[in-house]
């Protein structure tokens, strides 16, 4: 991955408390897994920034290397990678997600 792409991704993560890299937008997800995470965040009442990787091929590829995670969606909270669809849903079902979303930056 080029440094400029890494910096762009880092910049997005640094400037948003909760950010979801996804296929489509939060108003129009274009993948079932992305839609699931959007729905979970909505139910949690969390404000979040969406980044549509379908509009940016460099970020789409770069984000996979960034977190050593080969799939999208990817959720970041306070600069930290939280997980993809399965993990976020599991955390929500176990009631663990609210604590992560409401935690102050450490």
């Amino acid at each position, binding site marked *: 991955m080029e440094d400029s792409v890494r910096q762009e991704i880092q910049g997005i993560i640094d400037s948003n408390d909760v950010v979801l890299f996804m296929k489509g937008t939060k108003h129009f997800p274009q993948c079932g*897994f992305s839609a699931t995470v959007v729905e979970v965040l909505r139910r949690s009442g969390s404000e979040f920034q969406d980044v549509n990787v379908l509009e940016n091929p460099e970020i789409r590829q770069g984000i996979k290397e960034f977190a050593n995670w080969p799939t999208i969606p990817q959720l970041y909270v306070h600069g930290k990678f939280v997980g*993809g*669809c399965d993990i976020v849903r599991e955390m929500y079902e176990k009631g663990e997600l609210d604590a992560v979303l409401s935690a102050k930056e450490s």
Partner: protein
Amino acid sequence: MVEAEELEQRIRKGLTNVSHLVLTDLTGTKDHWEALVVSEAFDGKNRIEQHQMVYSALGELMAGPVHALALKTYSPESWAKQEG
């Protein structure tokens, strides 16, 4: 698409002592899979690390042949509780 046998082979090769492995073809098209994996390799690892280990075992299969992979990972201990 990829055959279940190949996924199983990679996972068993990449992770130590896989005691339980269930692969489900979610769509019948062999490219949307669910994997339930119980392995000693997951002991003491968080969920992100556990999933990364499976992705890593599958390597380049994740970059095309497997379009989607739903993961359920357990250490033997957490699996025992789950079964409880």
